[in-house]
């Protein structure tokens, strides 16, 4: 009997570079050369041949220092940055028997539709993920309106429910984002991302710049959502503590390459790559 694969997302050889490249690039960049920019043609190899799979409800952590390619990889997963090579295979979690689709082969219109319906993203900086001129309720409503919700009362009810779920004061639904604190804005982004019941939630440094108590509340919230809704998540962070709390599996990136991948506990307790060992020892 043919077995049905359980993965939701499979990334194969995803590559992104900024520049035209040259024949010497391959032998000049990467972790072994301690750089991601080619000294001959100045091309930046932001992400090279990244591959991994994600099961339904799984949380994958991506760690690495600044410039290691984490955010570039996340942007490609969010379909907002084109890839130079590779594929992002997606299988609908509610229908595992359905044939997978390569998201990078979709036309721009279909990509936008997919992003609206199946993806949610929480940015490190709220101004990237929220429209500051609209109210908090309006920002959450946008995802619903994109999903063809056309009843104002129903939209407000759903937005209020999402705000309640993300521990935001519902009575402030019509207030503008600049009147909210940083931690609250991250929760607004989470509420917005969850509005369309996404299959995949992308979290980019969601706790950066937040104080420890606020950070803990945001992490608790993400953990609860993951537990209750079985949302598949990709979590980018340079903070190993955050990764340890949320991610079951982790990949470590350096100079655009994945240098180590495995179970988070295994990586933190028995790191194999020298760079991972350095990261772990720095965090302790």
């Amino acid at each position, binding site marked *: 009997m043919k077995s049905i694969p359980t993965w939701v997302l499979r990334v194969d050889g995803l590559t992104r570079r900024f520049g035209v490249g040259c024949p010497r690039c391959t032998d000049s960049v990467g972790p072994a050369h301690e750089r991601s920019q080619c000294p001959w043609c100045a091309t930046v190899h932001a992400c090279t041949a990244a591959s991994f799979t994600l099961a339904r409800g799984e949380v994958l952590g991506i760690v690495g220092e600044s410039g290691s390619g984490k955010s570039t990889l996340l942007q490609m997963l969010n379909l907002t940055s084109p890839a130079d090579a590779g594929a992002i295979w997606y299988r609908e979690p509610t229908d595992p028997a359905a044939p997978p689709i390569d998201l990078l082969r979709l036309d*721009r*219109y279909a*990509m*936008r539709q997919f992003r*609206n319906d199946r993806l949610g993203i929480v940015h490190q900086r709220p101004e990237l993920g929220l*429209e500051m001129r*609209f*109210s908090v*309720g*309006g*920002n959450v*409503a*946008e*995802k619903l*309106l*994109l999903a063809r919700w*056309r*009843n*104002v*009362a129903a*939209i*407000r009810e759903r937005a209020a429910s999402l705000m309640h779920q993300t521990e935001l004061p519902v009575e402030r639904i*019509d207030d503008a984002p600049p009147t909210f604190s940083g931690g609250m804005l991250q929760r607004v982004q989470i509420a917005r991302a969850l509005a369309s019941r996404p299959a995949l939630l992308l979290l980019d440094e969601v706790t950066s710049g937040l104080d420890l108590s606020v950070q803990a509340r945001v992490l608790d919230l993400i953990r609860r959502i993951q537990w209750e809704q079985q949302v598949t998540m990709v979590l980018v962070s340079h903070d190993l503590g955050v990764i340890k709390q949320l991610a079951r599996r982790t990949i470590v990136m350096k100079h655009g390459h994945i240098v180590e991948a495995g179970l988070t506990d295994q990586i933190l307790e028995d790191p194999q790559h020298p760079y991972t060992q350095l990261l772990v020892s720095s965090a302790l």
Partner: protein
Amino acid sequence: MHELHYTYGLIDEDSKREVRRALLKAVALPGHQVPFASRDLPIARGWGTGGLQITLALIAPEDVLKVIDQGDDESVNAVNLRRLIAQTTGVSLTAVTADATVIQTRHRIPEERLRADQILVLQVPMVDPLRWVEPNLERATVMHGEADYGRMWVYMYESVVRAGDLRIATQYPVIVADRYLMDTTPIPRWDVPKLHQADALFLFGAGREKRIYAVPPHTSVAPLEFEDVPFRVEYTPGQRCARCGCGDSFLTSHAVSDADGATRWVTTCSDTSFCAARQAVP
């Protein structure tokens, strides 16, 4: 025979050809804004140069022209545009909507239902409804390309939340052929339903912004609305035209001085041709 002192239709043939090509593309993609190289004309940009270029590119000697501004055939702008077109083409002029084959207009669509052999050319001051939510032209173009109209819908949602109703009085945004978001130019909401599944061809020209777009006959034109807050046209209960007595047309108000010097407001039909036709019927 009218003696012409200008090139027929004032602008050169290459320019007219370019406008016609843009028009064909606009008709093929209803609601999509097609760029064109807007030419200089002897009127200032913002006074109807987009509509004028379309009219001049289309009009043939056998056409009958009507020009209206704010629904009025005798407004200063309408008279000047009509005079310019007549002087450079020699076409017949009319104020009667039913007699016209080409109607150039600003702010209004005539009250009478237009026929399949009529073309309505609208002058457009602001081309893109996304400008309210995305001032960057490049990003707005991408949003149109991907049909990414979420922010426009949020604008409408916020309007309802803050004011309890859809607050847009004019330039009401519509979705054309289930695809493109389109600005309806400064026509009142009263005229928006006339665009939907019409028999006539509607052409929109923006000279200053160098864009042309179109609503071909029998095309779906849906105003943005919500199930619980539907789109509504202007509602003036009890008001009637002081001249023809019509209570089912778009009305405007004028200040009128009486013989004794007192000023009072009088409400009349905005479409003067429609009003005159009603008055002529005993």
